[in-house]
């Protein structure tokens, strides 16, 4: 039986066929590449040869590990490869093999690493006292906040507190925020999806 020539095609679930010919696309790319090489001549090929012979530079992070994670900005959910050495996030790389983002990043996602490096991060609990911000301990902050909340609940009722939850936390945390409002005794809880 004679071998049949296979024309690459992708079939969408609805049955409509989108004809694609990656071979063609690749062929024209090679043509263009060949033309470019011819034009730029020896200088370029010389440099390429040199680069190919050079040794791969040693990674400055020899002990690092790579963590797969997801960008925290928009709902496209781009993949990120985070490189961590000694507990420090040292570099980030695009995820070429992520099925949705396929190596894409916007300017925000490209700076994801800055979420843990920004010098503008809040460093400790604080309270405003006599018009100035004062650093306080977690213990003091949590005790004061919670006793004030309980006092308000006692005096005015559970609906005197409004909780603004978040679309910027994990699904588990969002669920716990809703559950917390329920246990507190109010439906005064909402988040960014409303607006």
């Amino acid at each position, binding site marked *: 039986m004679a071998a049949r020539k296979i024309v690459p095609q992708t079939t969408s679930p*609805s049955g409509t066929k989108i004809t694609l010919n990656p071979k063609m696309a690749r062929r024209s790319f090679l043509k263009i590449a060949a033309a470019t090489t011819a034009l730029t001549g020896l200088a370029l090929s010389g440099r390429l040869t040199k680069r190919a012979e050079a040794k791969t530079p040693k990674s400055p992070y020899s002990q690092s590990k790579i963590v797969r994670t997801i960008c925290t900005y928009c709902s496209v959910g781009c993949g990120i490869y985070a490189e961590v050495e000694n507990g420090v996030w040292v570099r980030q790389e695009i*995820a070429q093999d992520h099925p949705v983002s396929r190596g894409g990043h916007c300017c925000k996602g490209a700076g994801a690493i800055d979420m843990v490096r920004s010098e503008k991060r809040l460093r400790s*609990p604080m309270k405003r006292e006599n018009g100035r911000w004062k650093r306080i301990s*977690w213990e003091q902050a949590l005790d004061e906040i919670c006793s004030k909340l309980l006092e308000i609940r006692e005096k005015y009722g559970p609906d005197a*507190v*409004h909780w603004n939850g978040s679309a910027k*936390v994990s699904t588990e945390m969002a669920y716990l925020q809703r559950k917390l409002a329920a*246990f507190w005794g109010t*439906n005064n809880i909402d988040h960014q999806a409303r607006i």
Partner: protein
Amino acid sequence: MTNHFNDIRHAKLVFFIGSNAAEAHPVAMQHILYAKEVNNAPIIVVDPRFTKLAAKATDYVRIRPGTDTAFLMGLINQLIQNEWYDKEFVRTRVAGFEELKEVAAHYTPEVVEDITGVPAKEVVRIAKLMATHRPGTVVWCMGLTQHHIGSSNTRAACILQLMLGNMGVSGGGTNIFRGHDNVQGATDMCVLSHSLPGYYGLSEKAWRHWCEVWGVDYEWMKSRFHSKEYMEKPGFTLARWYEGVIQEDKIYQYTPIKAVVFWGCSSTSQSQYHKLKKALDKLELVVIIDPFPTTTAAMCEKDNVYLLPSTSQYETEGSVTSSCRQAQWRYKVVDPIYDSKTDYEILQEFVKRFGFADKFFKNIKKIPEDVTREIARGTLTIGLVGWLPERIKKHTDNWHTFDIDTLQAKGGPCDGEYYGLPWPCWTEEHPGTPILYDISKPVAKGGLPFRARFGTEYTYPSGRKENLLAAEGVANPGSEIMGGYPEFKGWKTDVRVIKEAVKRGMAPFGNARARCYCWNFPDPVPVHREPLHSPRPDLIKKYPTYPDKPNHYRVYTRFKSEQKPELVKEFPLVLITGRVVEHMGGGDETRSNKYLAELMPEVYAEINPRVANNYGLREGDMIWVESPEGGRIRVKVKITDRVDDRTIFIPYSFGGMFMGRSMAANYPDGLVPYAIGEPANIVVNYGYDIKTQIQATKEGLCRIRKA
């Protein structure tokens, strides 16, 4: 989204209305541009502003802000009048067509031109383009939803797709590109004042279901509330909670609000911001839990505020749901930095101090995995039964094994499953549902009919009776009943019922028709209503807004009494707001990133050259923008044809300035963001959706003067 980003690669046409994906969802653009270049798909962008997305369009339609329903109904009318609609789809899977036809008939191309400003022949041309390029997808974002008729706008867009037969097919669908990274997940968990997780609502039945999942006594839960009435009554929303404090509109609650907790939530994204600021200064307690101090902290000028440093999401872990209903596991990259704590730890500390830790964490020993399991046990309505932590992790660990066209794994550990197990994922073995309402696949393999949610029959006001279930012969392959069927009894609370249904090849929620006539909405078929603050007083008479709505999420919400035809004389320009690619939400994160701050350092108002010349303004001049409610902001002028000569545009992600005053000194030392600016929401007008109370940020009036 009914479909997914990758599925847009199969679209023959992409129709955007109220979306600027090029700036708000840049990485999704690769799939859209693939459709444009490989399928030769027309890219239609409907927007008042020539956005960066419009620059990638084949067809740009400039529309007057707040007239989307009129435009969409105009397209629908053309499809019906010219018999371009999908008759078989309508016959078998749609209800209320006659009622729709009658309402749509009003929206002739000439009427649409008068309301929207889109030339009549463009309305016909776009309708024909859509009819001849199927399947096409319809995409929208907050440009469509943030209106006082936002819920009508979205329904009109859905009806348009029903008419084209574009639902339940690859390359079609209604695809709402959502904003924040986990807004889909947080919505599914119903961090919302009108529902418990999984869209169960607030009825006694809903509470009993969740009490059972949590392992707590219903009576105990009831005792936590002021009364049973308040337990079942929707609370204040993010859009209007501050009225609970300042009470400029009447509130319907036994107590004013005395304390607010901002937990990973910005305040500057809320309209009428100068009123919200009043509330901050009146509250007894403001708690801000965030990795950054936030603009909210800088706006507080009383000693009533605490800041708790939570970690970023890279210092903790959990699942996150993308716009396409896919779960991914966001792994922890590093331990918490500085003296910050994870949100989970902070919540545990709260719960411990509130004295119900034993009840709250009854089923939860390991965080977050046991929480994921509790969610899976309780959230049957949208089929999260199969979202087990180990399955979600497996998908993320093997993301490279999924096909980019179908998002189905080709071999490997997830073979045959769809990436991120898009919900509904009915069982522990279910592969996920990549395209909603797709009857070409068995339910067990990711197929689905339309949900039977509103009974089996309905009598319209005209006396016409209609069967609401799908027509004979329409069902997923392998279904025991080859035609419409009602929902299975008890499927929302008993997982055994779900498993039984799927085994029989059927959807647990039934097989019905999609409704064009929604009797539970104020406008059963979407109709145009002029924005509260309209630049067209003549149209207010013809298309008035709704009557005022008392007790709308516990607050009196003005509609009719707020619609003032004479307002345009004093406030002649229409104000719209939106995103820039460099910043997001309230901007506290992105403006604290020095690179992004350098790329987009300050707020500005886009103004048409004609307006600029009439007001004697040059590029870079400072102007005051003033709202009818007394809000005003000082911003820089950017002269551009992106907006027309009746509209101005301001990006909304700025903060740290307040009506001309810098609040920089009010941040903790050294923590002023790299970029600060006036929040556009100070001048965004009063106005809220009749159904959801979403704020109307994309309509409203303002005036400008040189500063």
